[in-house]
């Protein structure tokens, strides 16, 4: 009981750091840094999953933890890293909305997310129930990041961060989805990511830059 209490505190800490990382992502300009942050996010997710798995004694959570480690800590950041090396897209151009404003909006979103999550947390039985709000906040922040950035690759990172948030939500609210689903999600994520990888090169050769501002041809005029 005592140890579990410890774990809960630890989990809260991890959750807080997750949120912190999201804010950091929101504020960073360099793509390189974003990837690192993403990797950090993944690892925090991995640890928290491990803790939850241990405390709740669920074997399948170990699997998903491992999956997280493989995908989000090692594979994806590495590929992303290589990508930006190959595409030479280290710098993101100035975001559409300036950073402080984004931060403020993000703050509001966090509050909103907490408020939203309260009823859920109240009826949750998991030891991580209080962190559902944070998961939701992470999702919102990732969304915000996708909206404010104008490089394709940063949008993708935002997308992956959102995926993380979802995963965290799953673990914290329900100790993770059934295994089948987890695998399916992971597979989709991987495939989607590879498709994106292919895309980057095509976009590069067509638009000779990953700047989304080139991609505004299709519209009502």
């Amino acid at each position, binding site marked *: 009981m005592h140890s579990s209490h410890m774990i809960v505190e630890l989990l809260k800490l991890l959750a807080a750091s997750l949120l912190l990382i999201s804010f950091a992502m929101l504020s960073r300009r360099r793509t390189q840094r974003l990837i690192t942050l993403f990797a950090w996010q993944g690892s925090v997710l991995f640890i928290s999953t491990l803790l939850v798995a241990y405390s709740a004694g669920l074997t399948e959570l170990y699997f998903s933890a491992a999956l997280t480690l493989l995908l989000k800590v090692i594979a994806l950041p590495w590929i992303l890293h290589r990508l930006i090396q190959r595409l030479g897209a280290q710098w993101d151009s100035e975001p559409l909305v300036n950073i402080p404003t984004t931060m403020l909006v993000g703050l509001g979103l966090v509050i909103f997310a907490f408020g939203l999550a309260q*009823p859920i947390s109240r009826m949750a039985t998991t030891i991580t129930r209080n962190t559902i709000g944070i998961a939701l906040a992470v999702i919102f922040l990732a*969304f915000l990041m*996708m*909206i*404010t950035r104008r490089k394709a690759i940063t949008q993708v990172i935002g997308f992956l961060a959102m995926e993380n948030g979802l995963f965290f939500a799953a673990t914290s609210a329900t100790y993770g989805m059934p295994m089948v689903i987890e695998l399916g999600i992971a597979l989709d994520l991987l495939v989607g990511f590879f498709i994106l990888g292919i895309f980057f090169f095509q976009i590069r050769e067509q638009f000779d830059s990953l700047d989304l501002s080139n991609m*505004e041809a*299709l*519209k*009502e005029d």
Partner: protein
Amino acid sequence: MLPIAHFDAALIARGLPLLLLLVAVWIGLGLIGLLRPHSVRFVARVVFPLGAITCFALGAVAAHFLVSSHAPEVMTLPLGLPDLPFHARLDPLAAFFLLLLGLAGAGISTFAVGYFRSGQGTAPGLHCLQYHVFLASMALVILADDAYFFMVAWETMALSSYFLVTSQHRIPEIRRAGFLYLLMAHIGALCILLSFGVLQGGRWQFTFDAMRGALLTPFWASAAFLLALIGFGAKAGLVPLHAWLPEAHPAAPSPVSALMSGLMLKTAIYGMLRITFDLLHIRYWWWGVLVLGVGLFSALFGAIFAAVQTDMKRLLAYSSIENIGIIFTGIGLAILFAACGLPLFAALALTAALIHSLNHAFFKSLLFLATGSVLHATNQRSLGKLGGLIRRMPWVATLALIGTLAIAGLPPLNGFVSEWLLLQSFLFTPQIPHAFLNMLIPLCAALLALTVALAAYVMVKFYGVIFLGQHREPSLVHAHDADWMERLGLAWLALGCIAIGVMPQLALRVAGAVTGALLGQAVNLSSPFWWIAPIASKQASYSGLILLTGIVGVVGITFVMVRALAHGRIRRTASWDCGYPWQTSRMQDTAEGFGQPIRHMFGPFFRMERELPAPTDTTPHYRIHIEDRLWRALYLPIARYVQRLADWIGLLQGGRLAIYLLYSFLTLIALLVFVR
């Protein structure tokens, strides 16, 4: 109100299956036409005559039903929606309009036999299919007894006629006309649909029988009525929903123009009557005033615009608006009287409206077909290039003269009968138990009289400019008369005009069956067949037959006596014209010239653009372009607003991904706020 009690008695249908069979025959004929789509001979010489015969048979069956039994007949077809099979029903109202459709249609189809030549845009076979589907759908509209069947037939009618209108689709104006037509028809149809949606009164029953039973609150009843008025008004060409009519009717080949003007508009009248007097369980007096006002305005509007037209088919199209207006005036009066509890007078007004529909079917078709013959003979539609055809095409000219006199509302022809009846019913409006109404509405009679007299003016212009005077173009010398099938068709319609005019009592009896069914009251039908005295013979009476015989007799006697007394020979000389020697055919009144007094007097109605020659012009010419104010007042603004709205909404699709994401984000947030 049709008593539901009749219903069980009439379960053994008699006329109805036959009618449906004939409709099926039409569709079959259309499909047969597709067998040899490009052979004009086959289509014209084989299919169309059969179609004409079918028309006649249809009319005959309907007539038999009207004179023999008035008990409604019902049938359910194994088609339609699962919970809503097609219901068909034959009652006096339907039979009356089927009679109209059959008899006038027979003449038109006969004419069409001679009319269709090769090189008419759409392939003849396809044309034949569209033509007969058009006829069939009109019949089905009249026979339908549930909302769904009605709507299907209604829209099929619009669709087939649209394809007929655009058969010359290579001409942009015709495509534009077709588009406008189909658009208006569709919007009108939506309104009718909504009206049915109200009428079923939440009982989820779409058979008309159920609607008869539905009790609506005053508000909803009025809503249903107004929606129906908009819907059917759009089809009938009531002002201000008329804009499509003068575009579409002239665009079509003449037999089709005749079908549309003569018959299709009547289906709108039918629908109006069906909803107002049959499906709605109650009528309010202000409905009557509304319809009366709209009708009179349309009538006047149509007459005035017809007077200034320079294209013969447009002129006829506007005259259709006028006649529809007159019919609606009658309907409005009938509603008013019925709402005020004066069923006999309501019956009188309704009879007038019905008979005028019948008349219009005959003389308007006749005139449109005549223009078709003229078109074939001269390739000219503009009045400014015609003239003197009475000497080149005596047959068409003579038959057209009958139509002209009839539509001008002159005794002893049919047009006069209905207008006489309508004026008679106006005479009773002082008895309406509403202050003001009983003083104001009599004045409408004067407006009606003005319209009728204007119609005479228009028709003198129409006939005089086309057939009388001297050829305005030398090429007209080669104009040839219509071939015998065309003449047969025209003659049949002319015969109809004369018959109804001379023996109005027959029409009165037929209409009496309808009013009896709808209002439980019919005008006095006791008098002999050559004589009408709708209320009482002391009050007012009229006999076309005696009038005709009288005129013919006196003319004959005069002729004989003059021959006997006067010994002068006849010398053919140049015309006198006050001794002016150098006169040419260009000096006679043009269509524009004939319209000039109207332009002068009713200036506010038009939007005119004049080009006057300067005193110094070496080659002076005068051009005037007349436009319907409603275009700029109503239609163009609507189009503009839609355009502007579309532009605004287009901004949503700005092409920037971030914005799109923002949309979905905001939507998400908004919904979340909404649910918690």
